[in-house]
């Protein structure tokens, strides 16, 4: 059999990074939420906030472990599958990743230890501070990773010598043209993703009629945040899109499936882009919609896919459909958050069962939106791995396709097992729900949050 090493290496990266990004999108937001709960607990002395903090920390621990182990894989994959990428742009991208490890990873891992096991060993302020440090660490990690990725989209502050990129201006490298937009967009996406998980869990408790007070607190906090962040994401996304139009116009053309740049662009609500013929089939469109969004004028022009040869275009279908999935979920999020806020204002939020039922099922939508968004960004950059600097096909390792096929199979199998178990355990923790006051009552806290939850559950059963 013949294996195409480029395709396999791309598949492997797409698979491992899609798996990985699920966890940071959740843990970035969740750590901030946990730190907020901690601050509210310290500020008000309300025990409920403390219990919620402990509850979400258990879920954080399981997610964080999966994030860590899947992240280690990625940092080595640059070498195993993409050694020429590592070599050619390593001088520039390498230090950004290095700074991530130095500024974020150790911080997160160490203070998570305090957060998980240190409750009875440190004063409350240090305990809550550890939560804040973990949250800052996850955001810092996102800062560097988004900087590295943005440099691959809009490289700046470097020069090429003998086919190798050398840094000339580090500030220009770090704060490259697309970085501020991408960072804001992703960070906000992470908070939104977590917000919908918290909302879903709260709704689930209210429907089931258990942990009512905790569920209400979750609902209020999540909705209060999302009624602001969801509409804000639309604005950030729009700015990000305009920035992309300036630097990577062909990516935008693929997002809109816009072929002919000499005509204004329609916004395709649905279409089947025919990449061979260079037209859209079965299109349902809003005339001049894309021109309005992108150029803010009815007859505004922007480059079309036909302006470059087919070999220079990204895979249009991937980008086009992923963009639509992201947009659909984003619009749904805005509607759900604003409607929820409206119900809250009317005072009927906790009694509107159909709304709670729908929200209880929506825990996953943020994750899908994040993965779809990244697919737009990464597929849309093709055929380049570093826009205008290095082609994806020229970036891979001198490794036979069969070797990559073997490792890809192993990854799919391993991640499949790990992911199923992870979802199962997180679901179980959620089903158990926040426990009554445990540590204070018994002065005992298990070696891991999960054991602690278990022990507390067992005690509760014995008492009744």
């Amino acid at each position, binding site marked *: 059999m013949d294996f195409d090493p480029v395709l396999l290496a791309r598949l492997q990266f797409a698979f491992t990074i899609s798996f990985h990004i699920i966890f940071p999108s959740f843990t970035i937001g969740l750590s901030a939420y946990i730190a907020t709960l901690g601050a509210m607990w310290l500020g008000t002395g309300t025990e409920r906030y403390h219990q919620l903090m402990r509850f979400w920390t258990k879920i954080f621990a399981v997610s964080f472990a999966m994030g860590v182990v899947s992240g*280690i894989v990625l940092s080595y994959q640059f070498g195993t599958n993409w050694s020429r990428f590592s070599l050619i742009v*390593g001088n520039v991208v390498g230090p950004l990743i290095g700074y991530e490890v130095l500024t974020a990873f150790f911080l997160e891992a160490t203070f998570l230890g305090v957060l998980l096991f240190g409750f009875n060993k440190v004063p409350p302020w240090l305990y809550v501070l550890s939560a804040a440090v973990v949250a800052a660490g996850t955001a810092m990690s996102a800062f560097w990773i988004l900087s590295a990725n943005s440099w691959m989209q809009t490289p700046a502050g470097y020069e090429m010598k003998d086919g190798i990129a050398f840094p000339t201006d580090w500030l220009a490298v770090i704060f490259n043209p697309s970085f501020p937009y991408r960072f804001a967009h992703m960070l906000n996406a992470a908070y939104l993703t977590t917000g919908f998980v918290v909302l879903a869990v709260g709704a689930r408790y209210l429907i089931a009629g258990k942990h009512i007070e905790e569920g209400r607190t979750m609902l209020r906090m999540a909705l209060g945040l999302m009624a602001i962040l969801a509409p804000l994401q639309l604005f950030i996304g729009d700015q990000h899109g305009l920035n992309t139009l300036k630097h990577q116009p062909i990516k935008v053309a693929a997002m809109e499936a816009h072929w002919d740049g000499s005509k204004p662009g329609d916004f395709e609500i649905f279409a089947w882009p025919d990449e061979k013929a260079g037209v859209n089939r079965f299109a349902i469109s809003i005339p001049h919609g894309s021109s309005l969004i992108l150029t803010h004028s009815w007859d505004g022009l922007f480059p079309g896919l036909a302006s470059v040869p087919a070999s220079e275009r990204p895979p249009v279908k991937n980008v086009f459909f992923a963009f639509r999935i992201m947009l659909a979920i984003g619009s749904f999020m805005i509607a759900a958050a604003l409607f929820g806020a409206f119900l809250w204002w009317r005072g009927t939020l906790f009694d509107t069962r159909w709304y709670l039922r729908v929200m209880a099922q929506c825990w996953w939508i943020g994750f899908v939106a994040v993965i779809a968004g990244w697919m737009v960004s990464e597929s849309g950059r093709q055929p380049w791995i570093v826009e205008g600097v290095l082609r994806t096909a020229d970036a891979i390792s001198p490794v036979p396709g069969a070797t990559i096929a073997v490792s890809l199979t192993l990854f799919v199998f391993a991640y499949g097992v790990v992911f199923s178990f992870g979802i199962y355990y997180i679901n179980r923790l959620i089903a158990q729900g926040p426990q009554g006051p445990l540590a204070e009552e018994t002065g005992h806290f298990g070696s891991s949050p999960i054991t602690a939850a278990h022990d507390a559950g067992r005690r509760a059963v014995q008492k009744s």
Partner: protein
Amino acid sequence: MEWYLPVIWAALIGTAVAMYVILDGFDLGIGILFPFARNEGERDQMMRSVAPFWDGNETWLVLGGGGLWVAFPRAYAVVMPALYLPVIVMLLALVFRGVAFEFRTVSHSKTWLNVAFTTGSTLAAFAQGVILGSLIDGIPVRDGAYAGGPLHWATPFALLCGLALVAGYALLGATWLTMKTEGPVAARSRAQAKTLLLVVLTFMAAVSLWTPLAHPRIAERWFSLPNFYFLWPVPAVTALVAFLLWRWLAKGREVPPFLAVIALFLLGYLGLVISNFPYLVPPSLTVWQTAAAPASQIFMLLGTVALLPLILGYTAFIYWLFRGKVREGESYH
């Protein structure tokens, strides 16, 4: 600048790798020793002794791998494709053991998670030994790229190093348990440490004989004059440390054996550095040939100098916070 910058970086990455080997070494070792525990209570106790630390310990591996890429991209781009399969196996093994660690406490049926934890730990240790061994055995390079096949790493020496590291990590784990636990677990780990010490010394002797015999450059490094006058203390001190370690174990001391095993690891590591410096990818690429642009090395060095003391500081803090022994069937509080 051009000359010493790569040397500083080699020293820094060497430190990160040493930190990793020692810190993750003992918690991988606990996974290797897991099947010898009598019941779940003992296994809980063993796991609790490392629970607050393992995330941080594993991060040193990211720093080692990431650091190699940042500071020596030309070495990274050769070593990773050359050691493709052992690296992937190591990563997957770490994935399984890491999640088994977190999942084990939620699950009702622990058997499979115990198996995953032990297999993952053992396989990760073995793969790391193989990586080390095949690196010492040499990697064929042509035009700055890896020029061997997918199984070039599978040499008898590499497999020997794989077994040696499994035994070494188990020894580290056993002395950690001697120090951090009480009751039957502590007693058994002391007995295990004695056996493992003999096994590890045998492996160390085998590697020390094999490398100079197989590689003339290593023989010349150690046995030519005047090098020999400066280098003979390395094996002599190793023998002394091994002797003290045995005595301390026999006397039932708790903390010194763990420190002695760390010393043993560092001495072995020093021996390998002496054998191979300045090659980063033996037998052809040196630290200077593979270094990143000075601008990149300096940029990263500034961050490292500022942040590494901080990292070491809070790492020390967490070990201090969770000091003391984990008793049988009990946990931290």
